[in-house]
């Protein structure tokens, strides 16, 4: 368990030391900030839109059973099959079964972080299925055998030179530093795969209860191709993705595009309500929806943090988080990065093992400000810290805070203690910044402030005659 924290510290150290990388990420994000601000400004009121979105998700999450049942009934009526998976394993096993029973040979995927969460690709590849990621960013990290760096922009950490080198090595293409040419190389490589795949696996951004449809937001068109040509469509959908009504999408599609990518609308927003219908020209013969719990119901049970299930996975919180910008996506060591990842990972994977992500924050609140559905992210980090300490206090911390509390509730003694501390200050100067320095965590990179010769308390007594009120 300590190794998870140690790994986090190690990676954080490595990425913060890489100034070039940090500058590169910052540059990519500054373009996003401009576009996002322009898109927000085109709303009559972005803040009111956030309120409405928050209320809608509040309704959806607090009536989750009702809406999931409605969604299932409606989509099954059109011939889709809905499988309810309590765990990652159940979801993986089901999808493998579908592939096996249908003699599937090649599988194409569009972007779904939920599949990362359940480690689906590994399971499929172990069984001998070739799985191609069709989203350009996912395709790139798949070739590099890396996880996604950011939940919306999986390859944002790579330069075009790195991508060119990758394509040269894996696809035998010619070197180029033109993003358009690189995109065309990927497009050509993918074309045949769409046409030949037997099964397309997608995620879903939303699951509309009223009409029994899933909605997929994308720019590239790879999700549309993944779900049009193969004869089987499997959609992996977290249970929290529900929206009550079809017209809720009129609000959420623009908000997702704005917060996620600084666009008014992404290029393709598609609603799928079933497999090919009897009078339709094309489309999959089978559509399987895999509704996934995987401990989301535990998050649901925490009434204080239930709003986190309203997350639309836009990535806006990552884009504004100074922690994320400086340590990068890989340091988190888990599927969901950034503020939302730090908040929900303890619930999905264990509080004691993952509480450090909630501590690795200055609680600046930029995430909460950015969230289109007004999840109280930075306060949830505080709550995670409290929950972790309540469940299992760290002995050294408990003792020092008990001492602290006692001292602070006896102000005269506290003041005496600090006065004593002044005696040690010249001694500290001797070890300042060295391995012996107890304040080394600070003094290694920052000058330490000096204690004032007198505290304000003492000065007030001296100059104002000791009568405080």
């Amino acid at each position: 368990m300590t190794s998870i924290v140690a790994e986090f510290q190690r990676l954080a150290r490595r990425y913060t030391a890489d100034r070039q990388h940090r500058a590169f990420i910052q540059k990519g994000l500054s373009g996003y900030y401009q576009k996002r601000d322009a898109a927000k400004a085109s709303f009559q009121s972005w803040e009111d839109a956030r309120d409405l979105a928050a209320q809608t998700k509040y309704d959806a999450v607090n009536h989750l059973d009702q809406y999931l049942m409605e969604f299932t009934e409606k989509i099954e009526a059109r011939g889709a099959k809905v499988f309810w998976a309590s765990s990652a394993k159940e979801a993986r096993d089901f999808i493998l079964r579908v592939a096996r029973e249908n003699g599937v040979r090649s599988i194409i995927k569009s972007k779904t972080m939920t599949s990362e969460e359940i480690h689906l690709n590994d399971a499929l590849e172990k069984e001998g299925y070739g799985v191609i990621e069709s989203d350009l960013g996912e395709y790139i990290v798949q070739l590099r055998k890396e996880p996604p760096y950011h939940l919306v922009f999986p390859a944002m950490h790579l330069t075009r030179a790195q991508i060119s080198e990758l394509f040269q090595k894996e696809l035998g293409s010619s070197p180029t530093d033109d993003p358009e040419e690189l995109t065309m190389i990927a497009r050509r490589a993918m074309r045949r795969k769409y046409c030949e795949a037997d099964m397309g696996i997608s995620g879903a951004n939303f699951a509309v209860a009223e009409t029994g449809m899933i909605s997929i937001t994308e720019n590239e068109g790879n999700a549309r191709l993944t779900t049009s040509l193969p004869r089987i469509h499997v959609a992996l959908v977290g249970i929290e993705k529900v929206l009550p009504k079809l017209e809720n999408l009129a609000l959420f599609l623009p908000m997702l595009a704005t917060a996620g990518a600084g666009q008014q609308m992404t290029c393709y927003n598609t609603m799928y309500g079933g497999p090919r219908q009897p009078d339709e020209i094309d489309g999959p013969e089978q559509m399987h929806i895999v509704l996934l719990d995987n401990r989301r119901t535990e998050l649901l049970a925490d009434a204080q943090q239930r709003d986190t299930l309203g997350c639309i996975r836009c990535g806006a919180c990552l884009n504004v988080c100074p922690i994320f910008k400086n340590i990068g996506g890989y340091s988190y060591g888990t599927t969901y990065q950034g503020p939302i990842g730090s908040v929900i990972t303890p619930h999905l994977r264990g509080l004691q093992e993952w509480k450090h992500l909630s501590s690795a924050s200055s609680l600046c609140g930029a995430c909460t400000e950015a969230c289109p559905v007004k999840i109280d992210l930075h306060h949830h980090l505080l709550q995670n810290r409290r929950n972790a300490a309540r469940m299992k206090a760290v002995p050294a911390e408990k003792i020092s805070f008990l001492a602290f509390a006692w001292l602070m509730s006896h102000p005269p003694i506290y003041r005496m203690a600090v006065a004593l501390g002044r005696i040690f200050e010249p001694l500290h100067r001797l070890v300042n910044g060295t391995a012996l320095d107890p304040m080394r965590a600070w003094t290694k990179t920052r000058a330490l402030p000096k204690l004032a010769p007198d505290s304000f308390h003492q000065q007030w007594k001296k100059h104002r005659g000791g009568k405080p009120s």
Partner: protein
Amino acid sequence: MSDGKEIILRHIREALRENPAPHPHSSHPHAPQGGGSSEHPQREWLPKVGETLGEQIALFASQSEALKTEFHRCATQQAAREVFSRLAAEGGWKKVATHSTPDTLALLEGCAPSILKTDNGYQIDDLESCDAGVTGCECLVAQTGGIMISAPSAGGRALSVLPPHHIVIARTSQMRPDLTAAFELIQQRYGANGFPSFLSFITGPSRTGDIERILVLGAHGPKRLTVILLEN
């Protein structure tokens, strides 16, 4: 299968039994349960759209052009045919695909490339080798400068996304102000008898920002999108 459903539903109900805290950030009261769909509260906050057809067409034109959609307004079928011929000549098109509607067929009448009609199905490789796909649509959305298609109105799912150039032929009577209106149209047209399995908003040619967050057109879907708007 129903086992898994019952287990998850049970977990949900148990979890919700704890009282939900009142919504922390809202200045509005509790969300109404199952709010009326005739209300359209989102219209108050999303960008405003003019009420006249003229305003909406103008908005559609500027929005779609900003997205690099090629927008042509044509008074007659003949004018539309000329637009198509120009595109076909520029692109050296050999074969285009379409589904049969009066407007798609009128557009392609006497055109140079050969035509693959997908009405009764198609071979994937045939469709893949087409230079362009011609479709109708459900409506145009002024607010976003995009169009809405469905399986019935656009010849299925792949016709509008597999060929590298997508051409949409539409009528001014199909203009709608915003997404809310587009959804209303779908509810009116299909709500009673069953929705199609596929509906899509297409807002510009395909693109990606995955390489250094730089915008590139034509990722996997069509690199070019042409919308021809015919007067009614």
